[in-house]
């Protein structure tokens, strides 16, 4: 469904992504791993239009999207989260998710300037949908808490919900379990799996090997911006190049 064909990204002399070709199939749960600096987040930024490719093509369902702006890509059904926890910190959790519905709520128009009753109704509906989403992630108790006051785990969950709110086809997650302890990771990954079971394609960037290997059906490994290996978690774990790239890292030896 989402295809990267020979994608490269150069920053001056630095090659962040080098001739990467990856196909993400509809409905799959794909993991993207690699050492620090291997270009994972850059790939995410290229897909979502925050960076433009130096060369190569990116197509979504056959339609080329590598020249589009981020908000247009969001409209096409690709949502993402960010590495640094980004939520609208002054707003409540509920409002955060409501804003996430921006594209689908019907509020994205001129009429929403006036406080008419039809706008109030639409706003109410949006709030209900947002509440349902928060419930889906078991956060319904926390809807009115200012998002800046939420715990790290809840903020990361909120990020995912904001991205989910626009009913995307593909969800790109950038290190969603960073900074969490074992239990938190387990519960978050289970929720992400629930999202995948709804039919939403997931691309997961993570450093935490256990999370990736346990939940992803397929894994792509990057190193220095190039694809090092691709396959099931088992295949990748045994790949010589991958082991060499991670040499010294205790994570892979599980």
């Amino acid at each position, binding site marked *: 469904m989402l295809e990267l064909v020979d994608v490269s990204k150069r920053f001056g002399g630095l090659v962040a992504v080098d001739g990467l070709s990856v196909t993400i199939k509809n409905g799959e749960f794909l993991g993207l791993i690699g050492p620090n600096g291997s270009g994972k*987040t850059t790939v995410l*930024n290229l897909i979502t239009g*925050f960076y433009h490719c130096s060369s190569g093509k990116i197509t979504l369902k056959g339609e080329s999207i590598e020249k589009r702006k981020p908000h247009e890509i969001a409209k096409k059904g690709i949502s993402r989260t960010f590495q640094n926890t980004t939520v*609208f910190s002054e707003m409540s959790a509920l409002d955060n998710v409501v804003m996430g519905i921006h594209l689908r709520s019907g509020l994205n128009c001129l009429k929403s*300037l006036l406080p008419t009753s039809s706008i109030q109704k639409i706003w109410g509906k949006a709030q209900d949908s947002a509440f349902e989403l928060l419930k889906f992630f078991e956060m319904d108790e926390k809807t009115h808490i200012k998002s800046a006051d939420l715990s790290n785990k809840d903020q990361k969950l909120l990020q995912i919900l904001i991205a989910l709110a626009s009913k995307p086809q593909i969800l790109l997650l950038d290190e969603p379990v960073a900074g969490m302890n074992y239990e938190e990771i387990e519960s978050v990954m289970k929720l992400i799996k629930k999202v995948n079971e709804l039919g939403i394609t997931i691309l997961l960037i993570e450093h935490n090997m256990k999370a990736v290997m346990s939940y992803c059906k397929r894994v792509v490994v990057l190193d220095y911006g190039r694809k090092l290996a691709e396959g099931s978690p088992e295949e990748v774990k045994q790949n010589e190049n991958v082991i060499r790239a991670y040499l010294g890292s205790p994570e892979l030896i599980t």
Partner: protein
Amino acid sequence: MQKFKNIQFGLYFSIIFFILPLIFRSNYSKYTLVWFCIYCMLAVSLRFIMLVGAVNFAHAGFMGIGAYVSAVLMMRLGLSFWITFILGALVSAIFAAFFGIITLRLKGAYFFLVSFALVEIIRVFFSSYFVDIFGGVNGLIGVPPPNGILWLHFDAGSLGLLYLIGVITVLVLFSVYLFEKSYWGKVFNCINESDNLAQSIGINILKYKVIVFIIGCFIAGVAGSLYGCTNGVITPDDFTYELSLFLLVCVVLGGMENILGTVLSVSLLVVIRELFRSAAYFEPIIWGLSLILILLFAPRGLFGLGTNIFWIAKSTFRSLRKKEINAEG
């Protein structure tokens, strides 16, 4: 709830405002109240633009465009004020559209710098080009006041003109308030906090920034035309970056939280400005000093309740530094 309380407050404030000149009948008080209104419009529209993270240092320039266009149309073409002040504001808005579409893509610091250049360019333009139309360095003298409607007079210095300006100001402030409290206001909030996150949920930040910029500059243009009528004289030196600085101090002092803060700080600063009228060089020193002191000790503004001024461009400025989208993972 909160919305209605605010509207109530605005109502009381306006009522007080309209009664004042009947109590203090001097020309001086009328004059001060007129200035208060014009500065309110300017400061509130500047704050409006700053809501999306753009610090528009050229605000005085857009006021100037409105003032000059309106005055020229009245004086050279004999058109009536009621047409020219809209036209003046429209020209200002159109120019803002062109300028904004190009420059609002830039990160906050660059936009600020370019707007600084712009206000200077506008000043140079009106003082050196088309001198037979714009009057050059001496500007235009004898800008006529609005012609009366029915039995109402709007001559310079009259109560009628004061009330007219007051009504326009109230309308402007109320419209801005409505805008802010609507869904659009929430969108602005999002753009301000994190334009990356805003884009990722489908908000076209350039579109919103340009729209806000156009509206803010339109209002500045209206204020400019009104300024021309009340002052009778407009010169290029009326629209310098020093005026923009004064407006910026008003907004910073009042805090970004709400319009009320801005209005209160304008009232305070108008009073201070009148006190220091005679000390020509002292005035900007006071503004500079107050800006520094406020930023160091009260960054939320004296009247701002709970909004740090630095919040207003958190994402646009920090992403320059922090590289939120990291070329690292």
